[in-house]
Each structure stands twice: as structure tokens, then as C-alpha cells.
């Protein structure tokens, strides 16, 4: 009997190197091709090769499949395929599995020659069954052995076949995926993998007595599936930027891999510098010389770049800096997500260093954000920081295939002669804007300097020149704000509670808000893509609500802690910013668990807030 579902969350987990990641990505792609909404999340252990069968070593993928468009990774897992019971135990302990979750567990361990392993398996099996999980023991190893000698290479395709059967997905699409993955290798490998796929499909049909179907609502426009880092890389190509200077750092680096692969063919290059400082300095040099450049990094690297970012601010050199945020401070949690760098991005470097800060809210946004960032950087001669995070970087979701526009590629720098008397820092009195002179331009010769300077770029320590420079560089933010629109409110424009978010939390916040609204609650949300400058009109929007709170993935003191009170509580980054900018009593909810904040968690928090006295903001 086929059970029809609105959505399901599926996990495939294994030891590192057993291909669960590939299996999960393929499942996501197949479901997306069928027309389902999909969001895939990588499950990554911290080490490249953690010990086999270890609780902390789970590697794999989590796929949320829905009928409608899926905007986030969702809550708890409904069905899990595990290649051993230890990685499964890791997921149980992390509280990732729904009560009663369906478990498809490799059973080769039950009869393992090592008695310790066999005993551990049997014990875990019992405990899982006792805890109410619906565990199905699957002889994956044994079934694969009939096709390949080393089942470690191929079990993932068997699992994919089973899942295609269980979710009524088209096996032909799965075969296409195998072709796409192994097509470059020889036909034998393709054939073997397709046999494994079909074997899994057949085995599930013959031995499992349940089957699901998630109806599809096909999008009307072409769809692509990529993760946020690939979207960033494609956006960089589309933006017309030609130079990316970087230093390897998790979780940002894969964007440069993608770029390195495709950039050369379109006249671009990736420079892997000797360190983070050299990377940003190189990008600044290239930008100064007329080719707006980008540097891609994550928290620790972003810190190292601060002095150079200040130089770009001072010299008014366009520059795009992408920070794919991870857990901090220090080395922190390299593979885990956090939104901890907002205030560093806005207020970082030293002295007054105004820069633009943007945050893509979706994977699709990652593509367009860099195009916008380049445009702003060159128009305003400013540093534009794009704050992505590990969630966006490693999740995949279908979105409308971008349609390239030549206007994205700004024209090359004007190399025409500079008119007599023109000055390199002739700050406009209203907007602070200058016309930058680029090397090669006759008549524009001047020495750019990180020292305080006057309109001629001469070193100037006098009080007036210093204030003029500071004023002009700050005014550019106000000038940019004039070009921004107030962000749209999700839900009604007035109500009891407004939730404000930024970055990757958008999907989860809106899902929670939508579900509460469906029950009649007067809650709405607002998502900010520009953090510096803030878009106009947000104070007026906030004033339409009884309470305002942010939901963020960065630390905020817990009001329940003994020493924390209103006078010393450290609010989440955006809450602090909104309180300072808008003089509104904005509260916050924050979570820093290294995982995306779940829609269910947000829903619970918002429901509690709504139950509190309306109109009294900041109650916790």
C-alpha cells in the first residue's frame, strides 16, 4: 500500500568514504527532477577519516523532500538508512531522529567475527527497538556481494535503489544520476552501479511492506540544484569579476574549487595566496588596478584580513569579501554553522571603517548577492562584505535557473584621460562619492595612501582633511541606503509579534510563522538582506507590532541565568543593532548548536512569546 505524504526527511549515514554523501545528493537530485521540493544538508564529521564505526563519525546526507517548495532542512528525521549501528547511535544522541523513526540498518554486524562488534550491534539494536524506532535489518552487504566483491564500493547505490522504491521515485532518473556520476569512467562501472541500484529497488519491493509517495508540484520555470558555495562561484562568474584571491579555509573553500574549475575558460583566475592577508592584499591590488576582485574566506581568515579591509576603506578601493561563517571564536567549529560575524563585519577593522554588509538568505541569493556586491563595490568605491554561512554553503535546493544578463558584467574601468584639475578624492558634498582614477589613465597619477589624505591624495594630518575624509566615507552608506527599498513583510504589516532575521534562517523562520498564522496567530516576519546600511523603513514596520524579536544563530545571554539581567544582558547581533538604530525594545532568541535553527524550535519559541502579554516587548 502506498502512503501519500506531504513531506518526509530522509537520512543516509555511514562511515566516511562509504558514499552516503553521494547517495543522499543523488536522492535529492532525483526527487527534484520528479518535481518535488528538496533541501539537502550535509552531515560531516570534523575529521577527514574518523575511525570506522564511531559515534562521532557519521557522514552522510539529510534530504527533506516535500510536495511544495522546501525552504530549509526542517526538524526531525522520519527515515534513516545506516550502514552501521554506531553512526546511527550518534544521530540518536544528537536528537536528530523523530520518535518512531523508520530505520533501515545494515545487519552484517550481527554475525561479525569480532564478538565485541556483534555484541555492540545486538545491544544497540535492542535499545533502538525498545525506544520505539521501527528498525528493519537489511542484508545490504550480502546482497551487494552478489554483484561486487567489495560491497563498501556500491552499497550506496543499493541504498539509493531501495529509497527510490520506498519513495516511488523513477528508477530511470536514478540510472541517469549514475551515468552523470560515473559516465566519465568506463561502461563497466556504470553497468555495475546500475545493477546495484536495480538490486536495491527489487529487494525493497520484495521485502519491505511499506511505500510512500510525495506528490509533486512541478515548477513552471527551469530549475537548477546547487549548494550555496557553487551558487556563489557561479555568481562571481556572472558578475564579470575576473580575479579571486583566497587561502584554503572551511567551509568557504569549495566555492574557489568551483571557480578554479570554470574561471580560466572565461578569462578569470583563482590565486591561492600564501595566507589570508596576502589573499586580501592581492585582491586589493587587482581592484586598485581596475579589475574588481573578490576574496573568499571564513571567520578566522576574516579576522586576519581586517587591517587590509581598513586600507581598502581608506583608499576607497572597491572590494568584495565573502565570509562563509562557521562556529567561532578562534578555530571554533569549522564544519558547523553560526551567524557570529555580523558585528565584526559591520564594525571590524579599526577606526571608523564604513563598509557595506549584505547577507544572502537563500541558496539562490548566494548567486545574485555577489553580482549586486560587485555593482555596489564599484559604484560606491567601497568594501562589500557578503555573509554566507555553513548552512547555505553545504545545503542544496532547487531554484529558478538564472537567466544571464550582460548588464551584470560592469563595463571595464574607464581608461580615458582625466580632465585637467580633476582630483582623486574630490568627495561629493552630498553623497561622499568620488571618481576613482585607475593606473593607466593619463592625467590621473596620484599616490593612494592608507594615511589620512586630502582631496589630492596628499598625506594630510590637519584636522579638516581628516574630518572631511571620515565624513565622505560615511556618507556613502547613506547614499547607498537611498537606493534601497524597505524589505517586504512576510504576513500582515501589523500584528502582535514581528520576527526579524537575516541570512540563512529565512526559510525556517517563515515556515514557523506560516504555520502559526495558519492557526490564526498575528505574527509576521521581516528578513534583512542588507545589514549595513539597514534598509529604510524598518523602524516604521517594527512599530506596527506589539512585540519585536530577532531569531539568530549567534550568542545571546540567557535571561534565566543568575547573573544576567536587563542591564548586562548581551543581545544577539541583529537585536543589538536594531535596538541601537531604531530605539525599539527588540528582544531575541538565539541558538548556537552548530546546526541550522529548526522551524519547529522557532515555532515553539514564537508560540510562547505570543502567549505572553501582548504589547509588552522584551518579555522572556
Amino acid at each position, binding site marked *: 500500500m502506498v502512503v501519500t505524504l506531504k513531506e518526509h526527511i530522509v537520512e543516509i549515514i555511514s562511515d566516511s568514504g562509504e558514499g552516503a554523501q553521494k547517495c543522499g545528493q543523488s536522492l535529492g537530485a532525483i526527487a527534484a527532477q520528479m518535481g518535488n521540493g528538496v533541501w539537502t544538508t550535509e552531515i560531516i564529521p570534523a575529521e577527514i577519516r574518523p575511525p570506522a564505526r564511531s559515534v562521532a563519525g557519521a557522514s552522510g546526507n539529510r534530504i527533506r523532500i516535500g510536495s511544495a517548495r522546501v525552504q530549509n532542512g526542517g526538524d526531525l528525521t522520519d527515515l534513516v538508512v545506516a550502514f552501521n549501528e554506531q553512526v546511527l547511535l550518534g544521530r540518536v544522541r544528537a536528537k536528530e531522529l523523530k520518535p518512531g523513526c523508520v530505520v533501515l540498518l545494515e545487519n552484517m554486524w550481527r554475525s561479525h567475527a569480532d564478538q565485541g562488534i556483534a555484541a555492540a550491534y545486538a545491544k544497540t539494536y535492542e535499545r533502538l527497538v525498545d525506544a520505539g524506532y521501527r528498525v528493519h535489518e537489511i542484508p545490504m552487504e550480502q546482497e551487494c556481494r552478489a554483484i561486487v566483491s567489495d560491497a563498501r564500493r556500491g552499497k550506496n547505490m543499493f541504498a539509493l535503489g531501495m529509497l527510490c522504491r520506498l519513495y516511488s521515485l523513477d528508477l530511470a532518473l536514478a540510472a541517469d544520476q549514475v551515468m552523470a556520476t560515473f559516465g566519465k569512467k568506463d561502461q563497466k562501472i556504470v553497468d555495475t552501479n546500475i545493477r546495484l541500484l536495480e538490486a536495491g529497488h527489487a529487494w525493497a519491493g520484495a521485502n519491505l511492506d511499506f511505500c510512500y509517495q510525495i506528490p509533486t508540484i512541478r515548477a513552471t520555470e527551469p530549475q537548477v540544484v546547487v549548494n550555496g558555495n557553487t551558487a556563489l562561484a557561479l555568481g562571481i562568474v556572472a558578475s564579470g569579476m575576473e580575479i579571486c584571491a583566497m587561502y584554503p579555509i572551511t567551509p568557504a573553500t569549495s566555492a574557489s574549487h568551483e571557480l578554479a574549475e570554470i574561471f580560466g575558460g572565461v578569462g578569470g583566475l583563482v590565486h591561492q595566496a600564501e595566507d589570508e592577508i596576502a589573499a586580501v592584499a*592581492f585582491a586589493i*591590488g587587482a581592484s586598485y588596478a581596475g579589475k574588481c576582485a573578490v576574496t573568499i574566506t571564513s571567520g578566522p581568515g576574516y579576522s586576519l584580513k581586517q587591517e587590509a579591509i581598513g586600507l581598502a576603506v581608506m583608499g576607497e578601493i572597491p572590494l568584495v569579501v565573502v565570509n562563509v561563517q562557521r562556529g567561532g571564536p578562534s578555530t571554533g567549529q569549522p564544519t558547523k554553522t553560526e551567524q557570529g560575524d555580523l558585528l565584526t563585519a559591520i564594525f571590524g577593522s579599526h577606526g571608523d571603517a564604513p563598509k557595506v554588509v549584505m547577507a544572502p538568505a537563500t541558496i539562490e541569493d548566494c548567486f545574485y548577492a555577489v553580482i549586486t556586491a560587485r555593482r555596489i563595490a564599484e559604484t560606491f568605491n567601497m568594501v562589500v562584505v557578503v555573509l554566507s554561512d555553513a548552512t547555505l554553503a553545504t545545503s542544496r535546493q532547487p531554484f529558478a535557473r538564472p537567466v544571464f544578463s550582460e548588464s551584470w558584467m560592469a563595463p571595464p574601468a574607464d581608461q580615458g584621460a582625466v580632465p585637467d584639475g580633476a582630483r582623486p578624492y574630490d568627495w561629493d558634498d552630498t553623497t561622499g562619492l568620488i571618481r576613482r582614477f585607475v593606473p593607466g589613465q593619463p592625467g590621473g597619477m596620484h599616490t593612494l595612501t592608507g594615511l589620512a589624505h586630502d582631496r589630492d591624495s596628499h598625506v594630510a594630518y590637519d584636522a579638516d582633511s581628516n574630518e572631511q575624509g571620515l565624513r565622505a566615507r560615511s556618507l556613502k552608506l547613506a547614499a547607498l541606503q537611498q537606493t534601497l527599498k524597505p524589505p517586504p513583510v512576510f504576513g500582515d504589516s501589523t500584528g502582535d509579534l514581528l520576527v526579524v532575521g537575516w541570512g540563512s534562517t529565512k526559510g525556517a523562520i517563515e515556515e514557523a510563522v506560516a504555520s502559526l498564522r495558519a492557526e490564526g496567530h498575528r505574527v509576521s516576519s521581516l528578513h534583512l538582506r542588507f545589514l549595513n546600511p539597514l534598509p529604510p523603513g524598518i523602524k516604521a514596520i517594527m512599530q506596527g507590532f506589539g512585540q519585536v524579536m530577532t531569531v539568530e544563530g549567534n550568542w545571546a545571554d540567557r535571561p534565566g541565568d543568575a547573573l544576567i539581567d536587563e542591564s548586562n544582558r548581551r543581545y544577539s547581533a541583529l537585536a543589538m543593532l536594531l535596538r541601537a538604530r531604531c530605539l525599539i525594545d527588540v528582544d531575541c532568541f538565539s541558538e548556537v548548536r552548530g546546526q541550522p535553527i529548526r522551524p519547529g524550535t522557532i515555532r515553539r519559541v514564537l508560540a510562547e512569546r505570543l502567549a505572553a502579554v501582548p504589547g509588552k516587548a522584551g518579555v522572556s
Partner: protein
Amino acid sequence: MSVVSATECLLQMCDERFELEDYQGGVPRWCSGCGDNAILAAVQRLCRDEGLRPEKTVFVSGIGCSSRFPHYMKTYGFHGIHGRALPIAEGVKMARPDLTVFVNTGDGDCCSIGAAHWIHAIRYNMNLTVFLHDNQIYGLTKKQASPTSPIGTRTNTTPRGSYLEALNPVSVTLGVQNVSFVAQAVDWVPEALYDIVRAAYHHKGFSFVRIVQRCPEWLPKALDPWLHDPNRLQLLHHADGLQPSASLVRGYRNHLEHDPADINRAREIASDTSIIPVGILYRNPEVPCYEDVLRSHTLRTAELTRARLEAELDKHTVWPREADAASAAAQQAQG
């Protein structure tokens, strides 16, 4: 913009003569007797003699006395941050190989805070001309020991004398894989300084010139032993290297014929710090330049970008798939 015929353009180019004034920017604020003045004079002369177009020439510097250099040129200049002149210059050159790029850096800037960049800049071997203004002291911050201060140098941070042996910038540079040009000059022999600067400019690759220079303010007597005894300068000459004039040869009688192709001999010569070898220690025109290797020779156009982006998006497109698109097209054709 006026339209100029090809002939006129050619004539203009032939006509174009530059004078020293065309390169003279602000009035130098260095102390009198500072070696930086001599380097500035040699470099301005080079620009004039080579007819370098001021708008196509960029001087990049870090922070320190010597790094004020670009302000005194009438070309483009980039006076950056401490230690980072090299990566900035690399970015400029990578983006715009058509520009002539010079780097002015001091012993603190290059050999201390920017040392990592120095090592890697040698490896990259980009076509840059780099002047290490080595006065063996921090000047702008007022007399602190630098990595090249001789052991025992009394400074504000080492009042009882510096503790460590000085770093030898020439030996270090000669020790790095991919090194392609190393020369040494002293500020007080302008003729040799000019010839060396010129040879550095003409080398395609990372031309590293260490210029031993005096600091009259903080270390006024440090170089006296070399100033007072001309025999402690050793002129390196060779048919492929420096060819000093007769008057120079008469003034400095310690000569050594040294083939700049011989790196092992160059390393030996550099290692004796009791004398200052002046000339070209090493030159290898065969080392590839990073910009020639890394830069794509494809011209960036919107059409190319569109084509590449579409190809990439095709790979990631889940719907419509090729099969769907084909059947849709077939249906359309039938209809």
C-alpha cells in the same frame, strides 16, 4: 576624445621625451644624508632614460621611511600597509600586466612583518622590480632593532645591544626556489646603484635589489667601516653582469669577476658579510613568471561568460532535463 591617425600616433610616440621633472612628485621629507634620496634619484633617472610613461608606472610600498617613496614620484603610487607591499603589487601586476610595477620596501617591512610574502613573492617570480631599502633599523618608529641590525646594535628595544645575528636578505633570497634575479647596491656609489637598478628593471621576473643604505638619524656610524675602507666593497663584474666604468674601477679596487648564472658561487659571495658585494649576484631569465602561467589568455567577453555559465548551469539543471526538453520540442514540432 580626438581621433589620431596611426602615423600621428607613431610620431607622437617618437617625439615623446620625458624629463626628470615628469617623475618628480612631492618634495622628499627624508632626513638629509638618508640613503633613500640616492635611491629616488637613481629611479627617477631610470624612468626618464627608459621613457616610462608615468600613467603606466606604479610604485607600491608598505610602511616605513622608505615606503614614502611613491609620494615623491609623479607616477601612480600605492602606499599601503605595513609588510603587504608585495601581495598588493602582485595583485596589480596580475590584473594589469601592461603596467610597470616597482616595489619599495624597508628591512622591517620586507624581512620582518612581511617576511612570508617575501619568500612567496620570490617563488611566484612575477615581473616586478623590488628595492629593499635596508638601513638596518626601524626609522619611522624611532630606532628599534630590525632583523638586519648587526648583532650588538644598541636601539631603544635593545639598549644593551641586539641579541641576534642579522638576517642576510641576499642569502635568504638566493635560497628560495624559483629565484630569478638578485643584486646588491649601496646608496653611496650612485653609478653602480643606477646600473644595478637598470639591470633589475630589464630582467623579466622578480628582480630583487638589496640596497644597503645609511640612516644618519639613528645609526649614523653603522656603515663607517665600509665607507672608510673602499676595499670592503667588492665590485662584481662580468660580461653578463655589471660592467663598471674605468673611474669606478679606479675608486673601488676590490673586484671580482662573477658570472650571474652561477647560483652556488652567488651564495658563497653573499655569505661573507665582512665585505659588501656590489653587483648582480644571480640572474636566470628562464624562470617562468607566475602571471604568464596563471593568467588565462582568453579575453573576457559577455558572450563567453554567457556560454560558460549556461554550460555550467546545464550541468546543474534538474528540470527540464534534456529528455524532457527533447520530447517537449518533438511535441511542439508535431503540434
